[in-house]
């Protein structure tokens, strides 16, 4: 039977993730309320504005149920804002920014800069058994620190010629996967990160 993969549909690029889920052979389900969590095998937290999604999670009483479900093993994949929302700690968050906080990572928000610094770049995904993909980074976060139980799967370098630093942009902790970039907004190719999530992380 096809897996039912939810997309948290409070705000953000929900439609793109739904398309990627369907093209990866699963059924896409919109998740807006607590009861929607009961019928899904896995969940994607989309790109969007992390402060907005975080507030709506709290207001519509989804934050604690999500924490519970993910802690109990609901497979979850967060992209960009979704990565921030999974992070235990956020650097440069808004005042009092709340997250689900189930993943043992410290994320720097808007780490690569403002929108004029947003970029795309070819990224090697051999660690997840995929080829390279054009990764699109939009006001993107990076993982500044991770716990020993978190596996770094892809990195990019930033900085100037005299000082280059490497930053983790794709990581997995058991049944949780987080990406700084947006594999969902590419068109006309396979969604290999979604396939990996559905096949491996949510197996």
């Amino acid at each position, binding site marked *: 039977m096809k897996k039912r993969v939810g997309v948290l549909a409070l705000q953000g*690029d929900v439609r793109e993730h739904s398309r990627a889920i369907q093209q990866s052979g699963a059924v896409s389900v919109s998740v807006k309320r607590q009861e929607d969590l009961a019928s899904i095998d896995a969940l994607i937290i989309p790109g*969007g*504005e992390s*402060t907005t999604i975080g507030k*709506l999670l709290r207001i519509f009483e989804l934050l604690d149920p999500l924490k519970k479900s993910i802690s109990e093993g609901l497979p979850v994949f967060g992209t960009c804002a979704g990565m921030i929302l999974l992070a235990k700690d956020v650097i440069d968050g808004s005042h009092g920014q709340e997250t689900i906080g189930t993943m043992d990572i410290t994320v720097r928000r808007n780490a690569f*800069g403002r929108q004029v610094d947003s*970029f795309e770049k070819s990224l090697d995904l051999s660690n997840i058994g995929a080829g390279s993909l054009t990764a*699109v980074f939009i*006001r993107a976060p990076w993982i500044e620190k991770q716990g020993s139980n978190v596996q770094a799967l892809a990195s990019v370098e930033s900085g100037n010629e005299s000082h280059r630093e490497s930053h983790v942009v794709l990581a997995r902790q058991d049944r949780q996967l987080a990406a700084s970039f947006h594999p969902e907004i590419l068109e006309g190719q396979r969604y290999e990160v979604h396939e990996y999530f559905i096949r491996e992380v949510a197996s």
Partner: protein
Amino acid sequence: MSEVTGTSRVKRGMAEMLKGGVIMDVVNAEQAKIAEDAGAVAVMALERVPADIRAQGGVARMSDPSMIEEIQRAVSIPVMAKARIGHFAEAQILQVLGVDYIDESEVLTPADYENHIDKWNFTVPFVCGATNLGEALRRINEGAAMIRSKGEAGTGDVSNATTHIRKITGEIRRLTSMREDELYVAAKELQAPYALVKEVAETGKLPVVLFTAGGIATPADASMMMQLGADGVFIGSGIFKSGNPAERASACVKATTFFDDPKVVAQVSRGLGDAMVGINVSDIPVPHRLAERGW
């Protein structure tokens, strides 16, 4: 491959991330913080909200850079700012300031009555207004990475926003029902490039995100625009010209997310205090209507 900035994917992608959200006009850091706390996905930094531009008259221009920077320092969400139609030097300044999106806006006094800004020349993405599909596609052809349907800004009267979002989505639906050999004439009639017309006919949507703006003042207005096919809403004067901006801002955010659930919209509509008083668009003489600027 090294990093490439300012690509169409990066510019249009930024707007995709704003979908389902509310972008609010703010004139200072304090308002920007209220907007962020209420759950706005971005703020539009400007010196005067449209209602005041309308009341005070005179030439409306790009905001003072220090005022924009003050707002950038105050919040962590994206900051947008307005340039006059065709005023590419204002846009160059806004790009240097690092604003996240430029609104080439009819709310300001136009600087060029023939040409819009050549937006392909910029790394920063642009949003432009449109009253119909042809206008939207002309702006996209010039490099706009996001479209907002125009309403009559600064009025609190939602009727023009309704007209224009219906017009744009209606014209899109019409294209999807046409035979392929009819699209050439459709492009001629829309005064838009054939390639974009064909793309819209095939996909049934604009190639960029479509928000709506102008006259939205209540959670119900936001819900209606979303139900009519908008990807999100801009609220200008409607929030900070109302009795209780923080409550109203938060209510509009919730109503935009749960636009299709009248119970939620009813719940958040309670006890918001006075909405902006507003002006009926029909009482504004035609030469003073902002939505008609743009060509």
